[in-house]
């Protein structure tokens, strides 16, 4: 009952016409920011913070605007993943795997509506989870030390091998390239710069967004130039947009499971939405097995990562609000926003600032409904963008994403790096090496290394420390199973196929 009373308080704060307007504006801007490669949710929110100061918004209004942008970007990221095979932001990476093949098959509208619905389910369940479980879940963070985090990241990498179905060795190579790139920058354990060549621009490491836009958008542009504008994979058959009830019904169990997986990944500080969508996708893939045809454009492959990443986005708010530990890049920026508004997130936030917390939760629920409404009817507009010929669309996307990258840092160096990644992406694709594991290596490699090095510092280099808790052992078993199982399953599953041939 107390929860309901609190929620009523939250809605009384968030449901004024003015804040509702801010929510709608925030959702719209967020969707666009998410959809544009080069502007991720964390950068979108970071860019808008000075604007909210300039507008003189009070704490609640600023929070409503920023969380709408945050959730909006989570929704928007899928659009370019599905339509262009270029992820709009990091968490939308996994959506390209099945979303784009679906769109190529002429089901772009279905994929967009389905992923919109999955996003809604994920975000909605995560917000409910946040309301009911925040104080309890906050304690989970105390159970995760360096050894547990290392095992968690290991689990992610062990399941990676099964992702590219054609050649596991190539995806392993790709992951290693990503891990190598993740090493660039100041090493947080020793404080010394590595692989920077003394260049100050490399001290902060390589931004994921630069890598994503380079490997996907710029590489696509190179292919386009090479083929003189023919043969580009961009350009998808347009279909009538109807609500694909059949797909939505079929994928409900997937959405529910993916929301659970994503939410838990989000709650763990430092794991974040990318890991959430990745683990959600891989879980569903292993449940469906080889017959599930993941990677060829199946509805479940679209629903799982979208429910997962939106649930993780909600889950990431749990440690941020209850402990002041951001669970992802974007929540780190939201945390900074709260601090500038003189609100210190932490264990006492729920007690000291109930109006802020419950206003935030209410605005999340509002934003989620607004986004569902905005994303289902308006999906037609996004699909229509497709009919723009590739020779306008591709340079347009490149221009916007380049501007976006430049706006982040104001540094020409990132643009050079962007082109470098474009060249890398071009050659990798020529060699038929998948680029998704490269990005995952960059995204997760740094965190994984930090966890390992911290574990080694605490244990004086004793490797048995890595198996010192039940949680760590459980994650290790899951990781080994995830790595080994596909090898055996493949043998079992291939035999009947050989007979039928």
């Amino acid at each position, binding site marked *: 009952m107390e929860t309901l009373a609190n929620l009523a308080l939250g809605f009384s704060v968030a449901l004024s016409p003015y804040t509702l307007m801010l929510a709608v504006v925030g959702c719209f801007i967020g969707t666009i920011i998410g959809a544009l490669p080069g502007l991720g949710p964390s950068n979108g929110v*970071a860019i808008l913070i000075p604007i909210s100061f300039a507008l003189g918004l009070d704490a609640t209004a600023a929070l409503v605007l920023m969380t709408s942008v945050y959730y909006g970007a989570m929704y928007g990221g899928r659009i370019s993943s599905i339509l262009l095979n270029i992820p709009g932001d990091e968490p939308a990476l996994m959506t390209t795997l099945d979303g784009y093949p679906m769109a190529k098959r002429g089901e772009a509208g279905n994929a967009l509506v389905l992923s919109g619905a999955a996003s809604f389910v994920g975000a909605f369940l995560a917000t409910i989870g946040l309301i009911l479980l925040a104080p309890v879940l906050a304690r989970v963070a105390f159970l995760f030390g360096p050894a547990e985090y290392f095992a968690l990241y290991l689990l992610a990498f062990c399941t990676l091998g099964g992702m590219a179905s054609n050649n596991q060795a190539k995806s392993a190579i790709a992951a290693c390239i990503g891990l190598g790139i993740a090493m660039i920058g100041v090493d947080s354990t020793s*404080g010394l710069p590595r692989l920077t060549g003394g260049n100050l621009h490399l001290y902060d490491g390589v931004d994921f967004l630069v890598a994503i836009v380079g490997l996907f958008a710029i590489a696509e542009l190179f292919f386009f130039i090479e083929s003189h504008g023919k043969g580009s994979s961009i350009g998808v058959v347009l279909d009538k947009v109807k609500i694909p009830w059949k797909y939505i019904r079929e994928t409900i169990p997937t959405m529910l499971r993916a929301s659970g997986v994503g939410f838990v990944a989000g709650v763990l500080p430092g794991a974040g939405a990318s890991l959430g969508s990745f683990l959600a996708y891989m879980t569903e893939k292993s449940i469906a097995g080889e017959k599930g045809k993941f990677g060829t454009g199946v509805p479940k492959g679209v629903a799982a990562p979208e429910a997962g990443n939106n649930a993780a986005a909600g889950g990431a708010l749990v440690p941020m609000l209850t402990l002041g*530990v951001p669970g992802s890049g974007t929540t780190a920026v939201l945390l900074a926003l709260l601090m*500038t508004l*003189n609100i210190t997130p932490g264990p*006492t936030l729920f007690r000291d600032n109930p109006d802020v917390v419950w206003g935030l939760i209410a605005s999340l629920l509002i934003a989620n409904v607004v986004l569902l409404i905005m994303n289902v009817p308006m999906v037609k507009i996004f699909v229509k963008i497709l009919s723009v010929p590739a020779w306008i669309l591709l340079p347009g996307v490149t221009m916007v994403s380049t*501007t976006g990258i430049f706006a982040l840092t104001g540094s020409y160096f990132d643009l050079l790096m962007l082109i470098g990644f474009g060249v890398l992406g071009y050659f990798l694709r020529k060699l038929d090496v998948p680029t998704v594991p490269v990005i995952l290596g960059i995204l997760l490699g740094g965190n994984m290394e930090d966890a390992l090095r*911290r574990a080694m510092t605490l244990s004086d280099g004793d490797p048995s420390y890595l198996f010192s808790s039940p949680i760590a052992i459980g994650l290790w078993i899951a990781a080994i199973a995830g790595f080994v199982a596909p090898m055996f399953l493949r043998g079992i599953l291939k035999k009947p196929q050989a007979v039928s041939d």
Partner: protein
Amino acid sequence: MTKTLLKALMTSAVVAVSATGVTTTAASAAECIAPANPGGGWDFTCRQIGKILFDIGAVEKPVQVTNMPGAGGGLAYNTVVAERSDDPDLIVAASSATTTRLAQNAYAGMTADQVRFVGAIGADPGVIAVAADSDIKDLGQMVEMIKADPGSVAFAGGSAVGGFDHLKPLMILKEGGFTDITSVKYIGVDGGADAITQTVGGFTQAMTGDMSEVVSFLSNGDIRVIAVLTDERVPGFEDIPTAKEQGFDVVAVNWRGLYVPKGISDARFEEWAGKLQQVADSDAWAQAMKDNGLAPFTRVGGDFQSYVDGLVSDINAMSKELGVLQ
């Protein structure tokens, strides 16, 4: 259909332009560079000081704030040294992190004498905290435990190895007569709150950080602060003893202040120092400090420059000993 695309492009252009628009500078107004993204400590320094400078009439036009993130402040430092070394209207936010990195040669060879440190007007006191149920009762006991077995107390802090949070317990240990500082365990995590999480979870035994990072955990009863690293007990937290009164003469605060380019005239340097003193004396700044958990810490002009010089050489010596610097 092309229209839709155009609309999308235009919207994004507006977003991009407004983003950069905030950070462009009018020629004659003063500019404050925050060497980080909006929202952090340096951004706060620029925005608060900039706003108060204008409100109390110390500058004629509103101070423009430019965010220049990169290399932990190194990119901004490089810009000031290489491109704007005689700009009289430029101020740059700085803190203990700036001097720590300079002392450790983390700005690609640039040194602290390439700019002038004009003043600090507030500080976040350093603290050492343990989990509420920890056996460690005070600083003396902790130092004795480490003397007996250096591996028995592992520290977590929000800065990298060799960073300011790492140096705090080492300064205390050196005061306590323990010299083998490389044997002390320290892990650098993502911020003070994360360090507390690791300590409450029992993965590390003590947390080293700033007062503002521990306040909410303190009132929740998760942790105990065993020492604050200031000259006097901090107002509002009178029950927390200083390291000094426990017999360890260590003062380590994360000061918030400004530096200016080296090439400006002495008169202009003094002028900025005077303006900063005005801000420090204002009611608005007193309120801003209270809201953000800062303690008063005012040192301006030549006085501050010599404080910074001392700090840099101390940290430099300790970093060499630690092995984070050759």
